[in-house]
């Protein structure tokens, strides 16, 4: 089923807000200038949120500004879903609040993937860095490829599957390892 992206963004708006806040956080951590931020907007075209920031030719700031939301959204998705996953999955104990919290966790997880613009910025920088013999930047290429693939596959709910993987499958795996 194809649902317009803006409707998905509206339904999962906490994820958009966390994603943009994570961009802003890493910009501030690395001392990059930020010109404009929109944490969320009810738009039917264009991005649901954005951060306009200073470009940088430093590798790690560029990497973390682009991929920071991926880390933060994924960790939050796991932490939030894990706690409500246990009672439902292992004890059939249900409460309405678990579903609200689960929605929050999955919404955040669904917006973990960096945008194509983030990937484009990173790609351009990685190419420059490799020319300058910084071979660590090679790591970026598979990540960028994954981001592109993920964003293309979002038409077939790849972002939801990713969130389900982090929020539901990962807690299951962790419990299997613990037990």
């Amino acid at each position: 089923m194809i649902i317009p992206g803006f409707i998905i963004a509206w339904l999962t708006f906490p994820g958009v807000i966390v994603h943009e806040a994570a961009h802003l956080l890493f910009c501030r951590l690395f001392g990059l200038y930020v010109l404009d931020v929109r944490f969320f907007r009810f738009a039917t075209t264009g991005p649901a949120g954005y951060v306009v920031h200073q470009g940088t030719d430093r590798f790690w700031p560029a990497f973390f500004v682009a991929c920071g939301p991926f880390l933060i959204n994924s960790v939050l998705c796991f932490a939030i879903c894990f706690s409500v996953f246990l009672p439902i999955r292992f004890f059939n104990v249900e409460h309405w609040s678990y579903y609200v919290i689960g929605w929050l966790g999955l919404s955040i997880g669904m917006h973990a993937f960096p945008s194509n613009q983030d990937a484009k910025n990173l790609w351009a920088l990685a190419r420059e860095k490799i020319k300058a013999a910084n071979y660590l930047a090679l790591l970026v290429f598979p990540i960028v490829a994954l981001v592109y693939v993920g964003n293309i596959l979002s038409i077939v709910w790849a972002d939801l599957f990713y969130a389900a993987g982090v929020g539901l499958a990962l807690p299951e795996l962790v419990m299997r390892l613990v037990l």
Partner: protein
Amino acid sequence: MRKQTCDLCGHSFGLNELLSAFNETLCGKCADGRLENVDSATITDKTVFRLTDPTICARCTADNGDVPFESTLEMPLCDRCSEQIRHYPFPLWIKAACVGLVIVVVWTLAANARFFKARILMDRSLKLAFQQGEIPLAAEQMYTAANLVPESQELATLSSFLSGVVAMQQEKWGDAVRCFEQCRDLPPQFQLDMMMSRAQIAVAFDNKDYGEFLRLSLDLLAQLPGNPTAIAQAGSAHACMYAAEGRPEDRQKALDFLARAEEINRQDPDPTFDEYRERIIHRIETRQIITAEAYRKLHGIAQTEKNP
């Protein structure tokens, strides 16, 4: 604010309102006219661009008179905007939302940690019970788990079941029956029906209700037709009936069951079987019904054996 005149119309405009188009300074209106017939391929950000007034803040349009603002990221910015883009503030509502999110994460993790603990205790308890045979310790851990998650019927059932098994080990048959009665939807491998029958049989024996003892023993035998202890127990029940009422057919059935049990037991001998058989024969011969403990005392046997 700095002003300059349009090269075409000659009117004066603020510098920010003017464009540079192919090295001419033009107002918006004149630029539209001038660029109308120009090949669009030649229009680039180098040939046509908006002029920047260094005395006007590019972000908030604050006017600094004739003094240029300091340039940040190649833009004239007032001190306030310059500071803001250097340290872009998190809006209050975002801070509040972050605090809320942290509270939700911490609260749900703390509130639901009991499920995590209970799941670990449950798993450990089942391993203790079914892999190591440490039933009392397993029952204790399952009880703790059930108390951590009182909403869970599964934990309550498992806890009752293990408590029932412990009660059986302690020969508290009534307690065992009460525990087993609280068990719901246990998988067949727990053999709840069999355990319940054994506990009920013991209760019936203790209450000297030999009719019930016989009925339950035959029910158990129907569940475990090839089990020598179940067969012997049916013999024991008939022996009790014979001892209590003296009907020869009960005596015969008791001996028949014992013979059958003995035959099956020979294939895979149970060390407790012989004592049990002797006790039933004693019951048939003397028509005295005594407990296993009394029988052992009578014959100076130290071994424990729990079949009635």
